[in-house]
């Protein structure tokens, strides 16, 4: 394995991690602040992607697509909040699981009715479609760097927002001690709606950003939801910092594991066995990582609540 | 002081970050005594009780029960050795009847609970003993009520009955009078007086009248440190205590 390959793969892992972070950030807030198990977070990501596809096709411009899709994703999130989720905050986790599972079924099917079952595509915006030369002979798509950049910007924004604004303070307080927040006389209903809408918008943003590199299809959020859950559990529920680190960790482990795990095993066993074992174990790596983290730290790496 | 005390705390220390919540506490609790702990909010009373009961681990020091080191034992082991407790915020099984709450505690020390057949709720021996204990705390007529549906005072009494069902040698009571009205308080004080005859008790309580009426000895904690430990009268007279704590009340 060459160093250039390692560099590119690391970059890829980083990019995948950033993507996971965008989805996981909203999820961990909703989980942590509202103690709400939102399985429907993945479909909000899907809706973002579909909106981006639609608006980009309508306007012929990805940037316009982004600008239109983002608020629409927010509106969809808020509609869901008002119709369904709002009535479930006070309820036990299992009711939340049942209801949000129902929302997944509904939205996945609704998307298929509206947009059809065939996958949709969004072209990479013209000005971002090139490649940059990282080192001699190694190209890297500009758009992927844009994703990394956008993800880091969101991370910074969140960091600032959570640590230095009033809403952020309430969010932090809510994640560590929800009773206290209501004792402070804060309008909990409004705080929850803001957090939820914001989380939905973040998921939508992730969906919009990946539309040009991934196929937009019904059910695209289901598997990512599970990955995002893995991320927030490893990071510690309610912790943005934890989600960020765990997302990068998962992104890197998954990407590097897929490409180098077999090579690594070759050091210990014959080549044929190594590649076969590597292939079998590589997809399990992130779950093994999660089980290991929870074994040693049953509340994740950065538990927000004591 | 020739006998080994029932419970001895030796240099017990607990930190939360930079905050010292239990500061080198060394205390002896002789058998048969009702020992009350006083102190303003945040003095570390409950934290101390958590360490004695085994809910949290101390950072330093030793807990000796009947002369043996129990510092490393989990709570359930200490229960088996004879340390039972109630909590500041009532901790019962709200979905169980009052009787079952107590019967379950009796079950804990009578035979294996890895029995998969037979109806536990109809085990006569367990129920009879539970009923006896409920009568002792004045809940004889309320045995079949769901614990969650009992009044606040009744819940506190139930929790004491649960603790008694483990046949403790040392009873740790964390503010048994908290949140009670006058009438309920009076009833609880009567119960405590009765218990005092039979059990060694470590009591945390804010109600001064109750403390001075019940306690054989009083310890005052401030910022995790013992600033006085003596008879109630001596503590009441101590200028240091008055200044640090009672002063506000006296003024």
């Amino acid at each position: 394995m060459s160093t250039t390959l390692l560099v590119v793969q690391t970059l890829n892992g980083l990019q995948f991690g950033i993507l996971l972070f965008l989805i996981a950030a909203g999820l961990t807030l909703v989980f942590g602040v509202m103690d709400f198990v939102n399985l429907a977070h993945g479909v909000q990501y899907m809706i973002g992607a579909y909106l981006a596809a639609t608006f980009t096709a309508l306007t012929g411009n990805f940037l316009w697509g982004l600008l239109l899709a983002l608020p629409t994703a927010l509106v969809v999130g808020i509609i869901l909040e008002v119709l369904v989720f709002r009535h479930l905050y006070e309820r036990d986790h299992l009711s939340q699981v049942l209801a949000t599972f129902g929302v997944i079924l509904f939205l996945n099917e609704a998307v298929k009715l509206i947009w059809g079952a065939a996958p949709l595509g969004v072209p990479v915006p013209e000005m971002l479609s090139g490649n940059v030369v990282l080192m001699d002979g190694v190209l890297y798509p500009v758009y992927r760097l844009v994703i990394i950049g956008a993800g880091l910007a969101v991370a910074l924004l969140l960091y600032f927002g959570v640590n230095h604004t009033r809403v952020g303070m309430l969010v932090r307080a809510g994640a560590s001690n929800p009773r206290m927040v209501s004792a402070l006389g804060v309008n909990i209903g409004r705080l929850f709606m803001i957090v939820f809408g914001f989380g939905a918008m973040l998921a939508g943003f992730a969906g919009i950003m990946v539309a040009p590199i991934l196929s937009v299809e019904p059910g695209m959020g289901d598997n990512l939801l599970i990955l995002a859950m893995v991320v927030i559990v490893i990071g510690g529920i309610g912790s943005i910092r934890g989600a960020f680190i765990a997302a990068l960790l998962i992104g890197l482990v998954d990407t590097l594991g897929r490409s180098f795990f077999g090579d690594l095993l070759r050091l210990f066993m014959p080549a044929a066995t190594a590649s076969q074992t590597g292939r079998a174990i590589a997809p399990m790596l992130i779950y093994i990582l999660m089980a290991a983290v929870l074994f040693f730290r049953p509340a994740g790496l950065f538990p927000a609540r004591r | 002081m020739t006998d080994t005390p029932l419970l001895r705390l030796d240099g017990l220390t607990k930190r939360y970050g930079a905050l010292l919540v239990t500061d080198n506490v060394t205390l002896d609790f002789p058998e048969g005594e009702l020992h009350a702990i006083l102190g303003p909010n945040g003095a570390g009373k409950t934290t101390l009780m958590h360490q004695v009961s085994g809910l949290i681990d101390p950072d330093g020091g030793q807990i000796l029960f009947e002369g043996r080191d129990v510092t490393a034992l989990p709570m359930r082991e200490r229960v088996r050795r004879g340390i039972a407790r109630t909590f500041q915020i009532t901790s019962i099984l709200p979905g169980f009847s009052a009787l079952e709450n107590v019967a379950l505690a009796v079950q804990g020390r009578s035979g294996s609970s890895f029995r998969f057949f037979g109806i536990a709720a109809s085990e006569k021996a367990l129920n009879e003993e539970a009923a006896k204990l409920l009568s002792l705390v004045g809940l004889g007529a309320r045995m079949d009520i769901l614990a969650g549906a009992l009044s606040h005072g009744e819940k506190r009494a139930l929790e004491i009955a649960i603790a008694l069902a483990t046949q403790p040698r040392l009873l740790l009571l964390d503010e048994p009078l908290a949140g009670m009205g006058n009438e309920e308080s009076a009833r609880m004080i009567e119960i405590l007086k009765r218990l005092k005859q039979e059990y060694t008790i470590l009591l945390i309580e804010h109600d001064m009248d109750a403390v001075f009426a019940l306690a054989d000895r009083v310890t005052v904690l401030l910022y995790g440190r013992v600033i006085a430990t003596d008879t109630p009268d001596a503590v009441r007279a101590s200028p240091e205590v008055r200044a640090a704590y009672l002063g506000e009340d006296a003024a």
Partner: protein
Amino acid sequence: MNEAVIPSAALPKGPFGLRRNLLPAVLFLAFALAPLAVAFGADPFFQSILIRIMIFAIAAISLDLILGFGGMVSLGHAAFIGIGAYAVGILASHGIEEAHVQLPITLAVASLFALVTGAISLRTKGVYFIMITLAFAQMIMFFATSLSAYGGDDGLTIWTRSQVFGSDILGNRTIFYYVTFAVMLGCYLLCRAMVVSRFGRVLRGSKENPVRMEAIGFSPYRFQLAAYVIAGMMCSLAGFLLANQAEFVSPAYMSWQRSGELLIMVILGGLGSLHGAVIGAAALLLLEEGLAGFTEHWKIILGPLLVLVALFLRQGILGLLTGKKNND
């Protein structure tokens, strides 16, 4: 939100009273008599659907044991269906078709898997427990996918159903129906006996208030682990039967969506009553079957239905049947 999160599973006084037993008695009687309806001219395929319902009911009952009575929300329960199914499939593909060999192996593998994963998972709580059980199920699913010799992702056809002392009586649908029914009834009765036993009382207590349980000298962990292992073994029976019914095993049996469906069955039916799990399994599968016949877009109907149940029926369908008011 931590107190009383899950509706209490405590049993009312007199656990064998008539009111309490009427509904399950009717339910199981209906299952027992259903093949008669076929004999009198009803659609024989109906029997196949019922077999499938009963198989998933077994899995749901076992999940209800740990979920409704132990408070353990497992999102990896389908792993045990897979273990049971693969035990049959793999053994059959090596010519070991005798049920009296397959069954003990199934139960042994399931209990071992439950013991190891349960011992690790139960160190965590709440959502962390949900996710770590999911992780273990995903691992074993990927493991099954990597078993090239046994079809990998394509799965494995079982050419001969399990033999009972050399005879193929499981091939007879009515016999298979009653075998499945007997297993379901057995699991139900076993669980009912267990939840009111000393063991069950500790398990229920641990769900309501683990700290209180510690404070009266119990170790909730040991009881929860034992329940987890029992439930895993029970669920592997469902896998054993499913493999024989479908005559096919596949990693898809263990997907997280499947585990989710099991959870939905239990919640939909009504948590912590055991027969609620049976009702939930029947309701979900019949809804699927019925709605899928109605329109290809049946999920667009099922989804909102589930939302409505979550919003308005706190005790699930059972609450509707027993007329329990849905206030807290």
